[in-house]
């Protein structure tokens, strides 16, 4: 087993990885920017190395400094968390070439799945259902027009090098296509450095359903059920749950089978997530593969009992999957609320000093956070400061526990989105499980 793991990340996910390492008897190295010098995750690690100024590009995404920190501490593996370098194929490749294990998929997996247009193509060629769309990248406006006519409006133009819900444009009619196509290309170039775009049918009220998969180096792949992440604002997830209220056992088996086939087609290794859209008639379509551990992984852990971070570490260490598909059961129901340091109505960022912090507890409540009293929420990074996760025997109990937990949660000194989550939980449509990706926009509009 690895002797020492360096965590190339910060905040709650860094703490999550440190916890898994401690339980496995592995020493930990926390690398941090100057802004995070006093952070809880740094205090929790065995060793600490400052790798740069607050700007992420000069610190958490600074490959030479991260690798140098691994070298001087003698770390034998690096866990990249999510975001930052986690889906940087070049970083994974450099780790491989210098003999430091990258805890995640191979650099080829990342490069291939990072090209969203190509990933669709590969999955479609396997006869698996993909969202009706352009076969690959669109080479011209004319190609875009032809594809859109064939698929039928409305369509959505997406960046191939994109992901995380950014760089997308909806087009309702043919007249708007040319302008949207050019704008999408320009945006893709400036945001992701590559102007390639592709086209898909735009579903009006889809559900975002994603499947957690685990694969070992011998090609054994299992799935751990689906997560429903339909509650999003500007394509950023706010609330996730498992199982999905819209998915029955038969559909679960089918989506799970397709997810496993999709990752097998690309010889995927380690932990990953396959994203689908589910339309009103319960037809599902492959969208993309996320080649990393995801923010919402805890809800899958709560219903399956599988520690996904430990699985990542064990698989990276060369172990084979010890879990069989028939061992996977989804027990009960789990919910997650992402708490952001933002105004709950205007969504303006609210960095600053947390003067008082008291996380909720009790049966069925889990909080993943690196915050504490007198911690500073700095403006340089993502605004998420805590994840509240609940588990119950059924959906009603999970919701009741979440409501109770959010009532108990004390965070003073900054604004948070806790009031927004409470409103969502009280919404009748949410309580009935009638949500789609348009839910939050309608909810916020009034």
């Amino acid at each position, binding site marked *: 087993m690895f002797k020492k793991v360096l965590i190339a990340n910060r905040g709650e996910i860094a703490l999550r990885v440190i916890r898994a390492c401690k339980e496995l008897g592995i020493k930990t190295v926390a690398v941090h920017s100057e802004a995070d010098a006093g952070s809880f995750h740094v205090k929790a690690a065995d060793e600490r190395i*400052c790798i740069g*100024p607050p700007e992420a590009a000069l610190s958490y995404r600074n490959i030479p400094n991260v*690798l*140098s920190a691994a070298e001087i501490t003698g770390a034998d593996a690096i866990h990249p968390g999510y975001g930052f370098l986690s889906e940087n194929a070049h970083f994974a490749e450099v780790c491989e070439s210098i003999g430091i294990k990258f805890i995640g998929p191979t650099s080829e997996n990342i490069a291939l799945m990072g090209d969203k247009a190509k990933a669709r193509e590969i999955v479609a060629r396997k006869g698996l259902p993909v969202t009706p769309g352009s076969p690959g990248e669109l080479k011209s406006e004319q190609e875009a027009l032809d594809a859109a006519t064939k698929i039928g409006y409305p369509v959505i133009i997406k960046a191939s090098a994109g992901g995380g819900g950014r760089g997308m444009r909806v087009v309702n009619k043919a007249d708007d296509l040319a302008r949207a196509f050019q704008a999408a290309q320009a945006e893709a170039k400036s945001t992701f450095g590559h102007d390639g775009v592709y086209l898909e049918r735009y579903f009006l009220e889809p559900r975002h359903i994603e499947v957690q998969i685990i694969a070992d180096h011998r090609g054994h792949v299992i799935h751990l059920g689906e997560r429903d992440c339909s509650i999003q604002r500007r394509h950023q997830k706010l609330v996730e749950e498992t199982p999905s209220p819209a998915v029955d056992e038969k559909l679960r088996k089918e989506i799970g089978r397709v997810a496993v086939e999709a990752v097998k087609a690309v010889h995927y290794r380690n932990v990953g997530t396959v994203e689908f859209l589910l339309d009103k008639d319960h037809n599902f379509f492959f969208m993309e593969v996320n080649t990393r551990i995801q923010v919402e992984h805890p809800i899958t852990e709560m219903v399956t009992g599988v520690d996904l971070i430990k699985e990542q570490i064990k698989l990276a260490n060369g172990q084979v999957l010890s879990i069989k598909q028939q061992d996977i059961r989804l027990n009960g129901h789990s919910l997650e609320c992402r708490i952001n340091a933002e105004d709950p109505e205007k969504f303006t960022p609210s960095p600053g000093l947390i003067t008082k912090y008291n996380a909720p507890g009790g049966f069925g409540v889990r909080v993943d956070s690196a915050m504490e009293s007198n911690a500073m929420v700095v403006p340089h990074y993502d605004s998420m400061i805590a994840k509240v996760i609940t588990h119950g025997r059924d959906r009603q109990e999970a919701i009741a526990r979440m409501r109770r937990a959010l009532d108990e949660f004390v965070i003073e000194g900054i604004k948070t989105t806790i009031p927004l989550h409470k409103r969502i939980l009280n919404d009748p449509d949410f309580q009935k499980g009638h949500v789609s990706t348009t839910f939050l926009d309608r909810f916020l509009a009034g």
Partner: protein
Amino acid sequence: MSKGKSRKQRTNKPPIILPQGFADTAGGKGSPSLLGNQSKHVQELIDILKRNNLTELELEREGVRIRVRYEQGIKTVTTTVADVGPGTVTSASQAIPAGSTPVEDTSGMVTIASPIVGTFYRSPSPDADPYVEEGDYVKKGQVLCIVEAMKLMNEIESEVDGRVTKILAESTKPVEYGQALFLIDPKATP
């Protein structure tokens, strides 16, 4: 642009910094006077420098050598790491200015901090003398030490003229970004 030899240079020798009005005046005694059109070459060099984010550029033509160095108020360090792979880099060296803007503490000392993560060495090689000792007077741009990262030897230069009053890091030990390496008294004279 002339067909003279021009190349990007990263060197630890103190560069010649052209004062603002130099191009407009005649050259010093013993050197060919700077003609009006050569001041145009100087401006072209400066433009090339800025456009390509270089720090130094040298042009040699008709017996005249002009070197231009661009100084920014806030130092941003761009370190290029040579392709890392087993055995591909044995010893490469580059000079980079100390990372953070030199910090003056309350006692008037300037702290030279490490701009990268790596291993600190006081001498260029194990059997060579250290670059500097406590008490030495150093000039701006002078190499003080090496921080080695991934087999790349990075020469750390002094940001100021002054006397080395304290060496804060230990040779062969790891250092992190922003770690204090030297204290220099900028008010000291040689």
